[in-house]
C-alpha cells in the first residue's frame, strides 16, 4: 500500500513573508514618512517597511487522493499557505513542489460589478484559463446552477444590481465550472440560501472526486470532518499538528476550548 502513495504536493521548509509599506510606526504624518525614508541603512525595518512572517517553516507531503483540511484560528496563515502552494505568493525561503498546476477555487477578483452576469461568466471562465468553446459549452450549466435566472432574467443585468447572496452564488458557479488536478478551497464558499448550499456542497464533492488532491480551509469543524481524511493545524504560521482528522480535531477542539 505504501508503494501506491504518489506525492502531489511537497512543501519543504516553507516561509512566507509579507512586506507592508509605511506601517512601522503609528504616526502617519508626512514628516514621519520622510524621516523614515531618510533614515540610513539598507535594513527594511529602518525604512518603514514592516515584515509580517505569515508562514514559518512548514513542511508536509500530500498524496494523490487525499483530502486535507487546514485549520487554525484567524490569521494563522491558512489562506497564505494555500496561495503559496498554488504558486501565487512567492516563498521567502523553502520550496513547494507540485504535480501540475494547483488552483484556488474562486474567481472573485476577476469579475467586475459593472458588467452583466453574462459577461462575467465569460470573463471569469477566461481568467481561469478555459477556452471560449469550453465556456460556451458550460455557459447554460453555470447559469442554471447559480439559479440567477430563477426569479427573472437577471443574468443580463449588471452584477452590482444583484443581492449579495445572488452575487456569491454566481461567483461560486463560475469558479466551480472548471476541473482541477490539485484543488484548493477557501472557507465559506458555499454561501447563499439553504437550497444553494446543498447544491454547492454536492458540487464540491464532485470536484473532489475529479481532483487528485484537495485542500480545504474552513472554520466549520463539521465540514472538515465530513470531507477530509487528514488535517493540518496551523497556529501563528507554524505547523502545530499533522495527522488523521479525528486525532487533530480532538486536540484542536481542546485548544479552542470547545
Amino acid at each position: 500500500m505504501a508503494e501506491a502513495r504518489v506525492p502531489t504536493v511537497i512543501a519543504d521548509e516553507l516561509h512566507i513573508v509579507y512586506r507592508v509599506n509605511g506601517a512601522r510606526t503609528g504616526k502617519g504624518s508626512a514628516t514621519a514618512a520622510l524621516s523614515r525614508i531618510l533614515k540610513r541603512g539598507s535594513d527594511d525595518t529602518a525604512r518603514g517597511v514592516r515584515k509580517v512572517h505569515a508562514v514559518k517553516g512548514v513542511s508536509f507531503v500530500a498524496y494523490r487522493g487525499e483530502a486535507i483540511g487546514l485549520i487554525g484560528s484567524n490569521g494563522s496563515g491558512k489562506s497564505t499557505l494555500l496561495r503559496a502552494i498554488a504558486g501565487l505568493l512567492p516563498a521567502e525561503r523553502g520550496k513547494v513542489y507540485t504535480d501540475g498546476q494547483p488552483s484556488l477555487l474562486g474567481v472573485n477578483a476577476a469579475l467586475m460589478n459593472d458588467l452583466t452576469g453574462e459577461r462575467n461568466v465569460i470573463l471569469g471562465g477566461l481568467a481561469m484559463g478555459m477556452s471560449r468553446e469550453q465556456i460556451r459549452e458550460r455557459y447554460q450549466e453555470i447559469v442554471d446552477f447559480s439559479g440567477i435566472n430563477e426569479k427573472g432574467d437577471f443574468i443580463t443585468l449588471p452584477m452590482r444590481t444583484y443581492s449579495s447572496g445572488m452575487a456569491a452564488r454566481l461567483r461560486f458557479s463560475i469558479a466551480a465550472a472548471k476541473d482541477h488536478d490539485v484543488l484548493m478551497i477557501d472557507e465559506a464558499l458555499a454561501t447563499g440560501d439553504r437550497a444553494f448550499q446543498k447544491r454547492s456542497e454536492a458540487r464540491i464533492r464532485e470536484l473532489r472526486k475529479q481532483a487528485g488532491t484537495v485542500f480545504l480551509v474552513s472554520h466549520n469543524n463539521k465540514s472538515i470532518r465530513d470531507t477530509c481524511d487528514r488535517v493540518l493545524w496551523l497556529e501563528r504560521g507554524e505547523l502545530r499538528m499533522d495527522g488523521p482528522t479525528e486525532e487533530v480535531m480532538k486536540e484542536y477542539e481542546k485548544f479552542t476550548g470547545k
Partner: protein
Amino acid sequence: MSETTHDGGVAVSDRPSPDDGMTAAELAAKYGLSVSGARPGLVEYVRQLWGRRHFILAFSQAKLTAQYSKAKLGQLWQVATPLLNALVYFLIFGLILNADRGMGREIYIPFLVTGVFVFTFTQSSVMAGVRAISGNLGLVRALHFPRASLPISFSLQQLQQLLFSMIVLFAVAIGFGSYPRLSWLLIVPVLVLQFCFNTGLAMIFARLGSKTPDLAQLMPFVMRTWMYASGVMFSIPVMLADHPGWISDVLQWNPAAIYMDLMRFALIDGYGSANLPPHVWAVAGGWAAVVAVGGFVYFWKAEERYGRG
C-alpha cells in the same frame, strides 16, 4: 485512502514508506513534481501568453465597458469624451487665443488635437501600466495567468479608447479641410508601432510600480513634462529655430514626438514631410521594437515575484 498510516506527528518523513529518508527535492524529482510558481522560460512564457489572448482581449474590453456603465448615455461617452476634449482645445486655442504658431489655423487645430490624442494614448498606457500589478494584487494572488497579460490588456484598452478618439479626430481633420486621401492609410502602421511602444513601456512601469507603488503619484508630473517637451502644442523645429540644432533634433527623435508627427503627416493636408525628422520611419520602428522587446523581457524577469506586493 483510510489505510494510509498517519502517525499524527509533525514530521512527515516519519511514515514508513519506500521514500523514507529522501529529501524533499529528491522526492519531487522522483515523482516528477515541479517547483510551484517558478518562472517559465521566455519561449514557454510567450506560448502561455498566446494561450491567454482571449482573456487579454476580454479583460480590456470589460474594463472599457465598465468605465461608462453607470452613465445614462452609456457607451456614447467613448466618443463624447474625446469630442469634448477637442472642443475645449478649439475654444481656447482656436477662438480665444487665435493661435496658429506659424502654421495657419486650418493646420494648427488638427495639429493640436492629433498631438493631444496621440500623446494621451501613451500617457494613459503608462499610467495604467504603473497600476497594472499593484492595483490588481487580488487578481494576481487568486488566479494563474502570465502576469504580462495585465499590462498588455491595459494598453489594449487604451488602444480601443484611441480608436474611438480617432472618429473625433477624423471629424476635426475634415472640418478643417483635410479630406480623406491615400496617406490616411499610414495611420494603421503608426498605431501599430505606437501600440508596441506603449505596451513595452507599460510593462516596464508595471514591474517598477509593483515594487514602488509611489510611482502612481509621481508619474503624472513626469508625463506632463514629457508632453510639453514633445511639441503637443507647438512645432518643435519652428519653436526652437533660434536654438542650437541638436536640441530640436533630440526633442524630435523622442518617441512621443515621432508618433505624433507621423500621425499628423498622415492625417493633415498641409503638414508635409518637411516637418518630419530624417529617417522618421526607422526611428519609429526602432523605438517600438526596442521598448516592446526590452519591456517584455524586463517584465518577465520578475514574473514569479509579482504576487508579493
